[in-house]
């Protein structure tokens, strides 16, 4: 009796379950396809619309009312300046903060507060940083709608990325190396500068490049700061007004006149090429250091 009961309750129905397995597998492949097809169409659309507008003049011209004469020169220089200022501001401060948290910080409430705070800053919408720049750097400190303001705002925006990746790089340095240095009588600062940071440099650089590539593509906070000015000069100093590539692209996307949509696509190609080469450098650094540590 007991056997018969169990037999009736346990029905393997294997063919049907296998069919369900096939259905599920198909759905999973479909979801992968949504992602890949989305990516491929996006890139194809940009290339199809934009390649025709690319020329040497597109790089070296200023923006213009006439799409045939418009170019990204001012935006390209604005982006270069913003990147430089962002780098000078975010990297020393970000790496310093990472060193403090990994090498100096006692386990207390202040440290926990700083850590929690960095995690939350990473999730603040970028436009809110734009409002911060608007209120603090422009209104309060009177720095104007300049490259300096833009670079510092962007520096604050990407700093959590620099801190988080630098901390990982610093944590990856074996503690035996630190202990060996301490054992030889090195002070904490000597250990940081002579042992920890040199080994963490590749990791810090990868994180820095990630942070910079985030900064290159950000448009929202830059619009809040730079506003939409028609810039027809390449900036020559940190107190100049500016435009950057994403703002220029946004301007062109917004322009309903004939030809400007193609210009936007061409601008996007320039932006993506800059981004891709930065990421390629990051991958190169990573691969090079990985093989070295295996030797």
């Amino acid at each position, binding site marked *: 009796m007991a056997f018969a009961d169990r037999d009736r309750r346990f029905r393997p129905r*294997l063919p049907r379950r296998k069919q369900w*397995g096939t259905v599920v597998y198909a759905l*999973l492949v*479909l*979801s*992968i396809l*949504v*992602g*890949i097809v*989305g990516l491929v169409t*996006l890139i194809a*659309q*940009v290339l199809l619309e934009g390649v025709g507008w690319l020329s040497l003049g597109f790089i070296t011209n200023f923006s213009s009312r006439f799409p045939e004469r418009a170019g990204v020169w001012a935006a390209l220089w604005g982006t270069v300046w913003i990147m430089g200022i962002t780098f000078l501001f975010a990297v*020393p401060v*970000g790496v*310093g*903060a990472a060193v*403090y948290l990994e*090498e*100096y910080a006692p386990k207390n409430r202040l440290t926990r*507060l*700083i850590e929690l*705070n*960095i*995690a*939350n800053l990473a*999730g*603040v*919408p*970028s*436009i*809110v940083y*734009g*409002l911060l720049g608007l209120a*603090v750097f422009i209104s309060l400190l009177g720095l104007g709608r300049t490259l300096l303001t833009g670079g510092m705002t962007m520096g604050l925006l990407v*700093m*959590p990325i620099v*801190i988080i990746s630098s901390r990982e790089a610093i944590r990856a340095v074996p503690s035996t190396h630190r202990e060996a*240095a301490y054992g030889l009588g090195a*002070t*904490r*600062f000597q250990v940081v500068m002579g*042992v920890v940071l040199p080994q963490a440099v590749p990791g810090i650089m990868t994180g820095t490049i990630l942070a910079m*590539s985030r900064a290159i*593509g*950000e*448009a*929202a906070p830059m*619009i*809040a700061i730079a*506003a*939409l000015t028609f810039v027809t000069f390449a900036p020559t100093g940190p107190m100049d007004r500016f435009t950057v590539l*994403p703002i220029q692209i*946004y301007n062109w*996307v917004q322009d309903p006149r004939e030809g400007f*949509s193609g210009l*936007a696509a061409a601008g*996007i190609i320039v932006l*993506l090429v800059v*981004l891709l080469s930065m990421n390629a450098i990051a991958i190169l650094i990573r691969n090079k250091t990985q093989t070295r540590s295996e030797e």
Partner: protein
Amino acid sequence: MASTNDTNQGQVPRFSLGRRRKGETTERLAHGLFLAAALVSVATTVGIVLTLFVQSVGFFSEISPWEFLTGTEWSPILKDENGARHYGVLPLVAGTMLVAVIAAALAIPTGVGIAIFLSEYAPDRVRKVLKPAIEVLAGIPTVVYGYFALTFVTPILRTIFPELIIFNALSAGLVMGLMIVPMISSLSEDAMVAVPRSLRQAAYALGATRFEVALRVVFPAALSGIVASFILAISRAIGETMLVTIAAGATPRMTLNPFESIQTMTAFIVQVSQGEAPRGSLEYNTLFAVGLLLFFMTLGMNVIGSIIVRRFRESY
């Protein structure tokens, strides 16, 4: 460091009192500088909160918070036909949520599907190609997504729904979904990879098929991480700016109709700030009131997300 190696062997190292004191000063200075660097991040948060609150005071002294939070009409810049301006933020909130819900409707099934595929099905070789390819989506600047929505997705949708207007919530929401897919897929995959092998092996030993292991064993075990990824991704969608500014329109409207033109909170901030609103004007202060609401909405979601990850993480 070099000086330590150079010390001649057999010779007792001499510590002069002066050098030692100088070294201590360096040590203290370094400690102070590193601490100061760490405190910059705290100052940033304090700066953001203070800025938003202080600037909003000017706004809330003229408009009551109650009117702001419950009003269903938003026209702070243009006067309506009766010459009045309205400061009810709900249309902006509704527009923001509408786009976020459309994005989530696309991104949640897709992202979870990709995560299950990568963690349970894909062989290593396939995974090594697909995972970075999906993550490229996360690195594309949002202004590019805006361009894609406006010049590609909207025209296609308009051939299917001829009544669709150019700037609409549907197109922006769908492209936003594509944008947040990698966030959901990588966070969910991390959660699923963390489920121990022994659980899967036990299920296989009981005769479970592959999809049963994936859906009934691994998925529930990783659920907290997966749900957290939804919350973090939606918070990202709420804070996203350029895509909705370009593709969703600039018409604040209380609607759940995805075919209509709407305005999100972020798009409103861009619209006002690109006009260089004069400092101290009510218009300028409106920016910060909306920014304050946006900040707390995303902060709240991020905090909930990280609490779920920490509190409900299954430890094996």
